[in-house]
């Protein structure tokens, strides 16, 4: 069953990518034509051109249509996740933050980050970022020993070695895999086909999940329930360190679903480029 789902995702991913490329190929030529005909009319208006300059094609750039076959489902799921955040996650994280001081929560966050080392290491290597993967290895060794099992981050404070977040979704993007189309996952939030494939590989590599425990010996949880519990703790702890961020982002939205979809796409694209 799981395999069938995976195959379906991959097949959809490829068809989606190819159709998307076609759309991209068509747009520039039509866009250029429009710009040419219109700029000749309005070059007299100097101040006007000054305001737009080169940006977004002198203000003519069309906002690209997003290929979004699941928009109906995605909208409903965005509302669902929003309610989950407002009524369950946020109050829990607030209570949690009230009980535990920030230094402790930030230590727990460091601890989870440190455990996710294999994921970052593998993906940095896969993207030929050898300097980063060497730093990741150094960070893991130092923080696990001198950093008290990862609760502290002496590698950063003493050596200036930053954490280099990379996941399989980014690695696929690095190799040119298109995003396919947008999918909002229940509880997990915005994603797309590429990143969903990435998530499957992430959870296989991650020590905090129990998928693939027969192949990889470093898995911490023995059962699905334990894995969920660890994951929930990590999410609540993470949210407690970012209280107010979601609300602040939401304030800027005129229509929640396309707004979050756009933010997600922009952010992922930046991360892939880095």
């Amino acid at each position, binding site marked *: 069953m799981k395999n069938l789902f995976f195959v379906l995702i991959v097949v959809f991913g490829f068809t989606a990518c190819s159709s998307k490329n076609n759309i991209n190929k068509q747009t520039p030529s039509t866009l250029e034509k429009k710009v040419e005909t*219109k700029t000749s009319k309005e070059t007299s208006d100097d101040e006007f051109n*000054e*305001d*737009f*300059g*080169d*940006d*977004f094609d*002198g*203000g*003519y*750039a069309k*906002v690209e249509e997003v290929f979004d076959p699941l928009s109906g489902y995605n909208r409903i799921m965005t509302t669902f996740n929003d309610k989950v955040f407002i009524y369950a996650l946020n109050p829990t994280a607030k209570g949690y933050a009230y009980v535990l001081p*920030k*230094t402790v*929560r*930030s230590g727990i*966050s*460091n601890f989870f*980050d440190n455990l996710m080392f294999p994921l970052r290491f593998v993906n940095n290597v896969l993207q030929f970022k050898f300097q980063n993967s060497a730093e990741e290895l150094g960070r893991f060794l130092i923080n696990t020993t001198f950093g008290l099992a990862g609760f502290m981050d002496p590698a950063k404070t003493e050596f200036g070695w930053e954490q280099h977040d990379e996941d399989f979704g980014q690695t696929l993007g690095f190799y040119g895999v298109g995003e396919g189309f947008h999918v909002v996952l229940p509880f997990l939030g915005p994603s797309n086909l590429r990143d969903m494939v990435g998530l499957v590989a992430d959870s296989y590599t991650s020590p905090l999940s129990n998928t693939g425990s027969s192949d990889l010996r470093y898995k911490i949880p023995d059962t699905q329930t334990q894995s969920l519990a660890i994951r929930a703790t990590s999410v609540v702890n*993470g949210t407690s*360190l*970012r209280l*107010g*961020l979601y609300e*602040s982002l939401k*304030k*800027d*939205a*005129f*229509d929640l679903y*396309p*707004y979050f979809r*756009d*933010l997600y796409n*922009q*952010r992922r*694209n*930046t*991360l892939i480029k880095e």
Partner: protein
Amino acid sequence: MKDIFKVLLLTLFSISSLFALQKDEIKTVMSKKIDASISIIKKENLTSKQKGQEIIKIIDEVFDYRKMALISLGRNAWVSATTEQKKRYLKAFEINLKNSYIDKLGLYTDQKVKVVDIESTFTQKSNVERIKLITELIGQSESYKVNYLFYQNRNKEWLIYDIDLAGTSVIATARKQYAGLLKQKSLEEMISEIEAKNNING
């Protein structure tokens, strides 16, 4: 004769720098402005509204709200707008942007901001210089990049025309949102919606 020329040139430079932000000053001036904004946010005796007003005073002169508003709306919608609508839109956009910026800045009362670097690029089409000031919000567990993008207006002033928050462009996001709204609504309705949002968030 040479000396006179030098003196003239010097005075000319010093006069122009009195009014306009110069390229080599961006880093120092912005560092000061960001530090000042953060210290206002940390003041406990001010209401959030007062803090907002204080911060606006500091950042107002480096933000080009008009340019941001225009590229967010796009040329076609701008051309079709009446003078009255243009005025209302510019005002609504400016308030919206300020509210959003101050709100985000207010999230990080215990964090530090580090000015990392300054980068110069040239636009593809007309080869005009652009400057990116890279800053970092350093939190206890995570840090986010906040980049300020500058262009030079015809008075040779360097002004901010976009902000990049953790890899997402404020203007690109606004552009997408406005385009989405204009698909279902008239410009008039869209402006009213921004104004309504400003009344809630302000």
